């Protein structure tokens, strides 16, 4: 059952894809063929976007002042738990607060790779941008302040703060909060003070932006092909008086035979 639940989306997409492909091959009418082609291409978009969707994720626009993520609070609570389980770092389960934060399970490899090296592996001021590293430090209880020095104001103020705020997590107000992380998110998102420092980035999961970018390209390529195809259809209609594939083919064959006789 779990197997089905994990894959039903692919199967639906395959059915849609094949529907489009079937129209392309089955239709004799050229415009209908192009419609089928469009459906086939759109279904491929579904496939890529499905790959990039993360459970409980939100659009890949870094949260600065709220707006996004507000209705995802509940989802995060669950995710966090799961993420922690996946991390399988025994010690993270000890403290509920850390537990919540560990939904960066997708960074698992990076975390593990970098734990030994501490927090500042990339550029010096990259710390705040690197949720996984900051998290790695915390999860091991090594030092909550390990991440602090990286949180320089300039960066927290710009888009980076979504992650940057991880370094804020161990601050007392959050640890003291008895609520589920959804409350923490809500606080941050609706932050009355409006200061960008109030980000709880660790709790925001983003969907993968790369498939989106690729599919934007694919959409545009699709419409370009479509306009060329339609222009051809218009010309074929003018030249043959029909846009039914079989009639055009019959006319072509007749023409070829006529030429063959002449030759």
């Amino acid at each position, binding site marked *: 059952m779990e197997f089905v*639940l*994990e894959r039903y989306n*692919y199967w*639906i*997409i*395959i059915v*849609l894809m*094949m*529907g489009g492909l*079937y*129209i392309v091959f*089955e239709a004799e*009418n050229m*415009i*209908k063929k192009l419609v089928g082609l*469009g*459906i086939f291409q*759109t279904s491929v978009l*579904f496939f890529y*976007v499905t*790959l*990039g*969707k*993360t*459970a409980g994720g939100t*659009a890949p*626009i*870094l949260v600065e002042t709220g707006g996004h993520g507000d209705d995802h609070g*509940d989802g995060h609570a669950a*995710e966090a738990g799961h*993420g922690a389980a996946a991390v399988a770092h025994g010690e993270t389960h000890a403290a509920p607060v850390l537990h919540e934060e560990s939904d960066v399970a*997708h*960074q698992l490899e990076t975390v593990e790779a970098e734990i030994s090296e501490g927090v500042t592996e990339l550029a010096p*001021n990259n710390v705040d941008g690197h949720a996984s590293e900051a998290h790695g430090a915390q999860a091991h209880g090594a030092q909550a302040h390990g991440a602090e020095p990286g949180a320089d104001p*300039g960066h927290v103020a*710009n*888009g980076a703060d*979504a992650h940057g705020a991880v370094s804020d997590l161990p601050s007392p107000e959050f640890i003291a909060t008895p609520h589920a992380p959804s409350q923490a998110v809500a606080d941050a998102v609706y932050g009355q003070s409006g200061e960008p420092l109030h980000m709880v980035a660790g709790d925001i999961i*983003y*969907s993968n*932006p*790369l*498939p*989106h970018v*690729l599919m*934007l*390209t694919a*959409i*545009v*390529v*699709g*419409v370009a092909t*479509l*306009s060329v195809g*339609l*222009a051809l*259809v*218009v*010309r074929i*209609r003018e030249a043959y008086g029909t846009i039914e594939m079989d009639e055009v083919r019959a006319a072509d064959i007749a023409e070829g035979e006529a030429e063959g006789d002449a030759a």
Partner: protein
Amino acid sequence: MEEQFVPSVLIANIALMSMLGVITIAIIRMTSLFGIVMLSGVYSLVSAAWFQAMDAVDVSFTEAAVGAGISTALYLGAMLLTVRKAKPTKGILKRWAPLLVVIGTGSALLYASVDLPAFGSLDSPVNTGVGMQYMEVSPKEVGTPNVVTAVLASYRGFDTFGETVVVFIAGVAVILLIGFGERALAASNWRGREDDDAQGDDSHLILRVVSKLLIPLIVLYAFYVHFHGEYSPGGGFQAGVIFAVAIMLYSLIFGLKAAMTAFPPVWARVGAAMGVAIYGLVGVICMLNGGRFLDYDYIFGPPSGEAHGHHNWPQITGIIGVEVGVVVAVACVMITAFYAFAGRTPEIRDEDW
């Protein structure tokens, strides 16, 4: 994995997907081209909603603008010049060849689906690979909140350049194939005359008033979508399409001739080339300043090396620059395509509907 999804997302997923399935079946069974074209527009719109549910907001926006908007307009334009009805298809038994192809391809896909990562999984290769790195590094390296824009215009800016060229070459293709030579001129005269008649009896009065109100707003919105693309969904392609829609609306209501006077076809042709040139030249400027093609860090000269604070201006300038190229190219090509289809005298008049 499943419990991680917000239920509303799953409900939307299933509901929209099944709508898409129903639409596909309807298209397979239909013969009225008008219906087919409309349903394909609906398909695009429903898929745009689905993309929204799947967090692909930029894809959703583009699909709505391009798939449901421009594509449908192009289909209708082509249909006006051809026929309204497809021939009824053959019996199911005679269609074994397409069925065979489809079953073959489908089983290959099903074969693969077994090993595909679970839907929504966070630790799939895709979501641990390159894609998610962008989420972390782009605030530092590019500095636009909308990571899709950053990836689109900077990391994979070269893809987008190629994409602009695809649009451009499609415009060239449409001009070469159905052009706006003398036939288009004749057509525009014909349309214009008819419109002059219509002006007499005020029958389009409401439309004229409303459209005069709307067109500036649409253009304004196009600019918003373009320049706000770094912060929210949107960007060059969507803005270009929206701008083209404004011209299309104008030409629908005031006649093709008026539109061609307001925005001459030659502008569209030159503009399409200009768009590609702008995009390319932004890249070339970076090259002249010592960087790689499209390396925006070099757009004002070699990078000074000092840490940029709030905004990474070279990157943002570069992104806006190339997006201008995209807007110009896309808008001009879409207008070109519209002119080309609308400007060709239809063989079938409205009476033959």
